[in-house]
């Protein structure tokens, strides 16, 4: 009896030490608790939404014929607890959620989870490439602006980045499509693949990755060609954001002694910039990732609309305009959950980078 607790790696004393104020574990636990509460809040918002929308749920879900059958309607109402009071309905809703049941879309007549599974990879692929492009260009611009502070290049990049956040995404998409597709014919006019092309066998759902896994090079180039224009359009806003963040991060680092020491040692400027300045500046750029992600989702709703991209933005839009309640609730819940989770990760990363944050 007496030996067992000592052998256990997490003794009470050790736990207390780990959880002391300002410790990393305590910080993560507190953020995690906040995350769980937030997730509950999100489910509540989604639930209230489904309650607010005036609709005959049974009729829209079951279709006309089944809705005429009292037994079927009754079974449906019992399954979703529609005959119960409000708090009970919320608990039933939560129970269904935990079982992965988001209800059935009244538009597609599929389970919402099935629909989400169909549409998420398309948006994920678009978003990943877009963030990748934005990161390369934005970080480069930011470093240049930071190193040339208050020079013409810096002022020029400030104007460019302000212009970038001022252009409506849907308008850039339209102009890009007009020039790139209609006028020059360099890019396809939308969709993920040319009509009549079979998608690669599904592994990840990302066509470029799946095509490579299949070893189908021409399919890869086709998929890449299709996503290039929408991904670039989607990147525009984030390029601006990342430029500005990188610039201020570089400015914080560039005056430090270790940078001066590296220069004094006679290191080539390229090495100083990449190994010293960029390495010091990048961690704080990570913190903007949550915002970048939100921007991509926002842009996706508009860009997918123009490029007929069968992604989650289109799904959300179709659900909203058709008042397809289960789909609206499902998609906004999914998006919100991903969004707060990204922010949670960013928060924790930030705590790793800057220990002062942990106390607040």
């Amino acid at each position: 009896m007496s030996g067992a607790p000592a052998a256990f790696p997490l003794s009470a004393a050790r736990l207390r030490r780990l959880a002391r104020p300002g410790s990393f574990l305590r910080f993560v636990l507190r953020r995690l608790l906040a995350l769980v509460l937030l997730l509950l809040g999100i489910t509540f918002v989604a639930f209230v939404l489904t309650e607010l929308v005036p609709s005959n749920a049974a009729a829209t879900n079951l279709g006309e014929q089944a809705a005429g059958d009292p037994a079927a309607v009754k079974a449906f109402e019992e399954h979703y607890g529609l005959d119960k009071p409000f708090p009970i309905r919320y608990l039933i809703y939560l129970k269904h959620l935990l079982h992965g049941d988001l209800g059935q879309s009244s538009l597609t007549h599929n389970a919402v989870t099935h629909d989400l599974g169909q549409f998420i990879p398309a948006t994920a692929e678009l978003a990943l490439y877009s963030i990748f492009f934005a990161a390369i260009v934005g970080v480069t611009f930011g470093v240049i602006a930071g190193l040339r502070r208050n020079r013409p290049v810096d002022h020029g990049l400030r104007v460019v980045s302000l212009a970038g956040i001022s252009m409506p995404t849907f308008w850039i998409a339209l102009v890009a499509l007009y020039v790139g597709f209609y006028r020059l014919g360099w890019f396809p006019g939308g969709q993920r693949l040319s009509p009549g092309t079979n998608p690669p066998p599904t592994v990840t759902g990302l066509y470029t990755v799946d095509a490579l896994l299949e070893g189908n090079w021409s399919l890869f180039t086709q998929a890449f060609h299709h996503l290039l224009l929408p991904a670039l359009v989607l990147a525009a806003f984030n390029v601006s954001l990342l430029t500005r963040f990188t610039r201020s991060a570089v400015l914080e680092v560039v005056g430090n002694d270790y940078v001066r020491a590296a220069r004094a040692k006679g290191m080539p400027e390229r090495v100083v910039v990449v190994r010293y300045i960029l390495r010091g500046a990048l961690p704080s750029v990570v913190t903007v990732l949550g915002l970048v992600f939100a921007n991509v989702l926002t842009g996706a709703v508009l860009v997918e609309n123009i490029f007929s991209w069968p992604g989650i933005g289109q799904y959300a839009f179709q659900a909203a305009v058709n008042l397809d309640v289960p789909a609206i609730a499902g998609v906004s819940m999914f998006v919100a959950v991903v969004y707060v989770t990204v922010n949670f990760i960013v928060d924790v990363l930030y705590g790793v980078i800057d220990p002062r944050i942990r106390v607040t």
Partner: protein
Amino acid sequence: MSTIALRGRAAFGLRHRVNPGLRQPLAVIGAVIAVAWVLIAIFAPLIAPANPLAQTFTPSMAPSWQHLFGTDELGRDVLSRVIYGARVTLPIGILIVLFAAAIGGSVGAIAGYFRGPIDGAFMRSADLVFAFPPIILAMVVAAVLGRSLQNAAIAIVIVAWPSYARVMRGLVLTVGDSEYVQSARLLGASARRALLRDVLPNVAGPILVLMTLDLATAILLLSGLSFLGLGAQPPQPEWGSMVADGTQYFQWWWMGTFPGLAIFTVVLAFNFLGDSLRDVFDPRTGLRHNETA
């Protein structure tokens, strides 16, 4: 923890430092464009060459001297529609920001001043709004309320107020601890009086910056919702929905390009202004709106 760049510089009132900022070229350019658009909106009937709703011309003519921006698929003059569009977008954008600032500002001020459970409840509801990407929430709210410009505006107010609540709360927390507010309370000033007379003037600057930048965001969102068909309804000349028409007939590039340019210039003007103003109030300049949820 809302690390908002504006927060630390609570003590700067409006009066002291505006002038050097207005000497910045970007601020001047922004102000000129913004004023120009306001004038265009006010004098639209005098400037516009044609009635924005009259379908009197040959449909889908390319830009020419008769129709500088061409005509649309129904034979309306695009230039006139763009000019009248300012009458839709500007007032509604300004109203959205005023409402969001009033609601969010009051919530934040009350939360920051009284602290405790009120603070907790108010700020958690703000967090909840921040949990959704703005356009998703705005789109859903606008769709649920019914498609109209007014409902789209309400939807944007709903997604926009929390940033004011956060900034205001942070500012009030710092200013509220200051000695002059404490002594005002000791002299018998009510909480309401202390908030309005002692706290508010000191937080006006940062809130003004936020409102300017937010006006840009609100206009983008509003035109985005209209683009999706959830805002202005035909035949109202609204820039976002005009761009949407342009995507239907995109071989006629002028239909979408010019209203898009209008949105771009208006939003750019307010971003120029807001960005320059921020430099005035916060030399450390960051771009951190809702960094964390």
